[in-house]
């Protein structure tokens, strides 16, 4: 059923967009490439999954998101802040963190594959247009559309957004104008991490939380930002949609060539638009 697969693809795009937007938050403002972003997904997924059995899905999700936000802030303050604007070092440092997270996750959950259970309210199906589709997935799509719209609005229409955009273009000038960017950076990192955590908690319901999802989803996220353009929110949206659909439809209709669909998309973009579909190389 094509419509079902299409919706699956859009759901996956939604989860990927959460990752990509978190990435964009960190890079667009602070030029931080967070290689541990996939690790955030994995860790939050595990926490949510582990807690759904005891305290239920919603609390599990909340704890997952908040934990990752806190961990993110600690990483930022403790390790990354002093390497401000040293892109390569930040990249390498967060790369090292991948190993740390992987080990700790294995330590805590012994390599099990865990799936959080859907909360009862969302555990049903909707009938429309001749198909039956899980409500959970539809809710994810709805939530992510709202988040995406909110991010877009904040960026383009609010004073905070203006400060952020100015901070990206010319940080010294913004500071010179007396605007304190430190809490904004901190907030942005926390938000970026939280988005990844949210993606992990909600996404783990169908991807599962397992050792290896960190690099898998990191790779997808990186491909998205490369084809969408690192400095663009809209690029992240477009990229997520493309990759999410390519991945899902590829797996559904060409299962032997699953990785190649994504590869093909990436190759096509690199060949024709090397700086990304909507990107501006900052």
């Amino acid at each position, binding site marked *: 059923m094509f419509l079902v697969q299409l919706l699956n693809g859009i759901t996956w795009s939604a989860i990927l967009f959460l990752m990509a937007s978190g990435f964009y938050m960190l890079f667009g403002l602070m030029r931080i*490439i967070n290689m541990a972003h996939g690790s955030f997904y994995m860790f939050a997924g595990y926490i949510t999954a582990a807690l759904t059995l005891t305290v239920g899905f919603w609390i599990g999700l909340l704890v997952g998101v908040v934990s990752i936000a806190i961990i993110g802030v600690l990483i930022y303050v403790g*390790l990354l802040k*002093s*390497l401000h604007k040293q*892109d*390569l*070092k930040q*990249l*390498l*440092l967060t*790369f*090292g*963190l*991948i*190993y*740390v*997270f*992987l*080990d*700790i996750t*294995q*330590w805590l959950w012994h390599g099990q594959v865990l799936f959080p259970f859907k909360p009862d309210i969302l555990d049903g199906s909707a009938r429309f247009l001749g198909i039956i589709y899980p409500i959970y997935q539809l809710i994810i799509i709805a939530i992510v559309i709202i988040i995406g719209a909110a991010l877009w609005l904040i960026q383009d229409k609010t004073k905070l957004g203006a400060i952020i955009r100015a901070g990206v273009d010319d940080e010294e000038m913004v500071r010179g104008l007396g605007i304190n960017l430190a809490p904004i950076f901190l907030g942005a990192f926390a938000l970026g991490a939280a988005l990844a955590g949210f993606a992990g908690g909600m996404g783990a319901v169908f991807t599962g939380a397992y050792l290896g999802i960190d*690099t*898998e989803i990191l*790779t997808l996220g*990186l*491909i998205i*930002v*490369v084809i969408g353009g*690192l400095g663009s929110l809209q690029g992240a949206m477009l990229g997520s949609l493309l990759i999410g659909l390519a991945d899902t439809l590829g797996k559904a209709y060409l299962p*032997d060539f*699953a*990785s*190649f669909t*994504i*590869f093909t998309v*990436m*190759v096509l973009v*690199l*060949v024709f638009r*090397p*700086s*990304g579909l909507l990107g501006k*190389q900052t």
Partner: protein
Amino acid sequence: MVRNFKAYLCLLAFLICVPVIFSPYYTSLVVKIMIFGIFAMSLDILLGYTGLLSFGHIIGWGIASYAVGILTSQGIVSNFFVLLLIALFAGIAFNAVVAVLALRTSGLYFVLVTLALAEIARCVAVKWHSITGGVDGISGITLPLEIGETGFYYLTFIFFVICLCLICWLVDSRFGRVLMGIRENEPRMQALGYDTWLFKYIAILFAGFMASMAGFLFCLFNRYVGPGDLGFGLSGEALLMVLIGGMGTIIGPFIGSVILVVLKNALSMYTTHWMLILGILFVFCVKFFPEGLVTILKKKISR
């Protein structure tokens, strides 16, 4: 000529004597050190000399390893030299294709694209299990040459010396100087009339050639190849070796290999948390010792 020439001779002399002095266990450890030393040196060509951080570097290693694995397990090739040639050729060929794509980008995009390409290669290795053995890989690979453990040691040693000489040549050569120029200021090199794309491309092929050598040896040493040979784990370890030892130095990557292999070996007797330590070491080095040991020592000595 290379400075510290005598020091290198001493090192090589020492390495020649290892199988005689040490037990087979430690000898095989030194084999591992040399193999990873070659891999780290090849990564340094890109990172230390050309200024390109390429996570796709492992493709040369992995493809060469898989070539050996597939060809020997299916019994297609039994001649050592043919096997070597095919492995090297395969590694270089893949690098040739990947590099064309990756070099469409630069800077941070380059790093990310090479990462994605390596991961895609790994996914293909996992999915195509009829040929690659999937997640389990190919095991039971044997060397089509009757030389025994000591023979293999000297085989590795010969490869190591060749690579060390190549790096020494690179440092003094015009080609190497251009690469270093690209690292420092690519637009200026272009202004001087150099086709920087071509130089970067050749650098990637050169590094891929050496990485393929290392992968070829490791596959025979380990008698196994698997998707891990195309993944993050090894890329990160090699990267750390270059970082700890010192980017852009001749012997730095080898020193890094010594430290990391010995550390991993010693620690794995006491704990299973090697990854945690690797990660912490990584973070620590990036934050406090980004120049690497050899560079720091060089500075202290030249005072």
